[in-house]
C-alpha cells in the first residue's frame, strides 16, 4: 500500500491474442470503486446471421451498442479489375456474381450502361421481356429478403414459405435461360432467349395465386406483437440522414423520400405500365419491411401488365459489331461465320468516352460507371453497389440499440456481401 506501482503496470499486459489484461488495481479493496469496461465483440466473418462474410466489431456496454464498425473485404474477388481484361460481353457473367441473389438485375444494370455508351436502343419486345424478368427477380429477391429477415428475428416458418414461391420463380428462370442462380440472360442489345408460351402460362398461373401467398406471410408477421416490437422504432433513420448517407432503394423510401429510378428516369417498359412507389413514414425497420412487401405486390402488377401488353418482334437488335449473328445463319453463311468469329475474338468496341448508368435493383441504386478508351474492354469499370453504400450508415443506425437488433439491422439493408466487396 505504501509503494506506488510503476507506470507500466497500470497499462496491463498483452496476451498471445493481443488482448489487454489490465493489471489489478492496488487500491482495490474495501473502498475501491468497481471498474467498468467496454466489451469488444467481434461478430463475423463467421457468424450464422451476418449474411455471408460481413465482420462487425462492436463496442458494447452490457448488451447496448456504443459503436459498430463494419469490416469489409472478406469476399473481395476483384471484379472491377477483372473487368478491365475482359471484353464487354464477357463482363456480363462477372456481374452475375455481384449480388448473387438477384443476378438478373445486375445483368440488366450492366447491359444498360453499355448500351447507353454505344447509343443503341433495344426492340420493344426485348424491353418488355427485360422489364418482366427484372420484376420477377425483384419479387424473388424480396422474398429471399423477407425469409432471411424473419429467420434472423426468429420466425423460422416464413423462410420456408417464401422459398417455396422463390423456387417457382427460379424454376421459370431455369426454363428461360437454363441457369438457376447466375443467369447471364441479358445480352448487350437484347435478351438471350424469348419468353415461350409455356413460361408465360406458368407465370400467369403463379401471379394468380401469389396474392394469397403474400397474405399468408403477413398473417405470420404483419400484426404479430413480437414482430412489431422487434421492428418498430428499430434502426430509425431520418429522411435527411438517409439522403446524406446516400441510401437508395427501399432503405431510402422507408424514410419517406420518394425516389425510385424506375419513376425518376423511366427505362425499359416502366413508363408504359401503371404502378406506385410505396413510401414509409418513420424510417424504421417495420416501414422498410412494409415497403418491400408492397413492392412485391407492385412488381406482380407490373409483370401482369407487361404480359398483357407484350409486343411481337425481335428480342434483340441485329447490329454487326454489337450482337452476334443468329446461330442458324452461322452454320450456312460465310459472312455470318466471319462475323461470329470477329465478335468472339474482338468483341464490342464502343466509342471513346465515359458513362454512368443507374438502375433500380431490389436493394437500391445499382450503377455502372464505364470509362472506354475505344478498345474492346473497358479502361475502367466502377460499380456503385447499394449494399456497400448502405453499410456506410451502419454505425449511425446501430448505435444505442441492443445486440439482438444488430441482426435486424443487417437484414433491413438486404445486404449481399458479393455485391458489397465486388
Amino acid at each position, binding site marked *: 500500500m505504501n509503494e506506488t506501482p510503476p507506470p507500466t503496470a497500470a497499462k496491463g499486459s498483452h496476451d498471445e491474442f493481443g488482448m489487454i489484461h489490465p493489471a489489478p488495481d492496488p487500491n482495490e479493496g474495501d473502498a475501491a470503486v468497481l471498474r467498468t469496461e467496454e*466489451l469488444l*465483440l467481434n461478430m463475423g466473418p463467421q*457468424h*450464422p*446471421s451476418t449474411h455471408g462474410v460481413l465482420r462487425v466489431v462492436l463496442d458494447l456496454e452490457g*448488451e447496448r451498442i456504443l459503436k459498430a464498425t463494419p469490416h469489409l473485404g472478406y469476399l473481395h474477388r476483384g471484379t472491377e479489375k477483372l473487368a478491365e481484361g475482359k471484353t464487354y460481353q464477357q463482363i456480363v457473367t462477372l456481374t452475375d456474381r455481384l449480388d448473387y441473389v438477384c443476378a438478373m438485375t445486375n445483368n440488366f444494370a450492366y447491359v444498360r450502361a453499355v448500351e447507353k455508351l454505344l447509343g443503341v436502343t433495344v426492340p420493344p419486345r426485348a424491353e418488355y421481356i427485360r422489364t418482366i424478368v427484372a420484376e420477377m427477380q425483384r419479387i424473388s429477391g424480396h422474398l429471399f429478403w423477407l425469409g432471411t429477415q*424473419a*429467420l*434472423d*428475428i*426468429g*420466425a*423460422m*416458418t416464413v423462410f*420456408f*414459405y417464401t422459398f*417455396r414461391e422463390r423456387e417457382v420463380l427460379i424454376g421459370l428462370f431455369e426454363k428461360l435461360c437454363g441457369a438457376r442462380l447466375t443467369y447471364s440472360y441479358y445480352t448487350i442489345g437484347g435478351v438471350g432467349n424469348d419468353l415461350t408460351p409455356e413460361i408465360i402460362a406458368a407465370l400467369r398461373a403463379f401471379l394468380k395465386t401469389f396474392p394469397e401467398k403474400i397474405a399468408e406471410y403477413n398473417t*405470420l*408477421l404483419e400484426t*404479430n406483437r*413480437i*414482430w412489431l*416490437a*422487434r421492428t418498430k422504432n428499430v434502426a430509425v433513420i431520418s429522411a435527411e440522414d438517409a439522403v446524406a448517407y446516400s441510401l437508395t432503394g427501399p432503405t431510402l423510401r422507408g424514410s419517406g423520400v420518394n425516389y425510385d429510378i424506375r419513376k425518376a428516369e423511366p427505362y425499359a417498359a416502366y413508363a408504359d405500365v401503371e404502378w406506385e412507389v410505396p413510401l414509409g413514414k418513420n424510417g424504421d425497420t417495420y416501414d422498410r419491411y412494409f415497403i418491400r412487401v408492397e413492392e412485391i405486390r407492385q412488381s406482380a402488377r407490373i409483370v401482369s401488365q407487361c404480359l398483357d401488353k407484350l409486343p411481337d418482334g425481335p428480342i434483340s437488335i441485329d447490329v454487326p459489331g454489337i450482337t452476334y449473328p443468329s446461330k442458324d445463319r452461322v452454320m450456312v453463311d460465310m459472312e455470318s461465320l466471319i462475323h461470329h468469329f470477329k465478335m468472339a475474338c474482338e468483341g464490342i468496341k464502343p466509342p471513346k468516352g465515359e458513362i454512368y448508368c443507374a438502375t433500380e435493383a431490389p436493394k437500391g441504386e445499382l450503377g455502372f460507371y464505364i470509362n472506354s478508351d475505344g478498345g474492346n474492354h473497358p479502361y475502367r469499370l466502377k460499380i456503385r453497389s447499394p449494399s456497400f453504400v448502405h453499410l456506410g450508415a451502419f454505425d449511425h443506425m446501430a448505435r444505442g440499440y*441492443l*445486440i*439482438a*437488433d*444488430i*441482426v435486424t439491422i443487417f437484414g433491413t439493408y438486404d445486404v449481399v456481401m458479393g455485391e458489397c466487396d465486388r
Partner: protein
Amino acid sequence: MNVVTQLVVILGTIGVVMVTVLLHVAYLTYFERKVLGWMQDRMGPMEVGYHGLLQPIADGLKLFMKEDIIPSGANKIIFSLAPILSLIPALIGFAVIPWGDGQLTIPLPWIGDVTFRPFVTDLNIGILYLLALSSVGAYGILLGGWASNSKYSLLGGLRSAAQVISYELALGMSLVGVLLLAGSLSLVKIAQAQAGGFWHWYAFALPFPQIVALALYGIAAVAETNRLPFDLPEAESELVAGFFTEYSGMRFAFFFLAEYANMILVSCIAAIVFLGGWHAPFPFLDFVPGIVWFLLKVYVFLFFFYWIRATLPRLRYDQLMTFGWKVMIPLVLANILVTSVAAYFWMN
C-alpha cells in the same frame, strides 16, 4: 417386504423411469422435427430408417463419436461440470412425477408381496422440490457460459441467469393458486384431488378456474426451458449458440438432453397440476388406462411448444424482461389474490 426387495423395487422403478424419459427425449427431437417440417411445408428427417425413425439414434451416435473440445483458457473443471449440472436436475425431477394411480402387488414365492407403484417417490413437498431443481439447472447454463472463455457464451449465460430468475418467480407463483385449492404440495395428492371428469381439473374447477394460471404457467415454462420465443440464451442468429457455443460432442448432447428433459418435466407438471394428471376427461372413459391420458396431456402440451416455435419470432432481451416483470408477475399475483378470496368464501 424386506429391505433388499424394497431397494430392488425402487432401483427398478428408477431404471424404468430413466429409460422411459431418455427414450422420450430422443424421440421428442424426432417428433419436433416432424411437426416443424409438417408446419413448414417440408418432410423432416426421412433418410435413416422408415420415415427417419432411426434419426435420433444416428444423431446420438454421431455426437458420441465427436471430438471432445475444451477451448484454451476455459476453466476445465467448471466447463466439464456444467453440462452435468444441467442434466442431472432435469432428470431427477422425474422422481416425484406420478405416471398413474394405484399400485400393483404381486405375491412372489419366498420373497413375499412386492408392491410396484407408478412413481419413484411421493414427496410431500413435491412441487417445491421441482422448483428448487429447476433453479439448480440454471447454474449449469450460467457456469457453462462463464467457463467457456467466449464472449458469446458469456452473454448467453448472463441472459440465461436474468431470464431464469425473472420467469421462475412467475412459474412458481402460477402454481400457488392450485396449491391453495388443493392444500398440498404433493403431486400425487394434487392429481388425486382432480378425479371425476374434466370439470374437476383445476384448470376448469370451481371456485376459481385456474385457466389464466395455466396460460401464465405455459408462458413461463417456455421461458424456463429456453424455447422460442424466449430462447435468448441460445439465440442462434445473435449469439451463435449462446451458452453452449463452445461445447461439442457428448457435453453438447448433455445440454441438449437437459433442454428436452426439462420440456417433458414442465409438461408433466402442467398435466398433473392443471389438467388432472392421469384422470380421464369424462368418468365413462375411465376404462382407458391412466398412463394413456397422462401421456396424451403431456404430448398436447409439448405440441404447443413446437407450434409456438414454428409461429413466433424471438423477443428481445429488454422486451423479455419487461414482459416478465411488468406483465407476468402482476398477473400471477392477481391470480393468487382472486383465488385466495374465492377459496375463502367457497370453504365457508
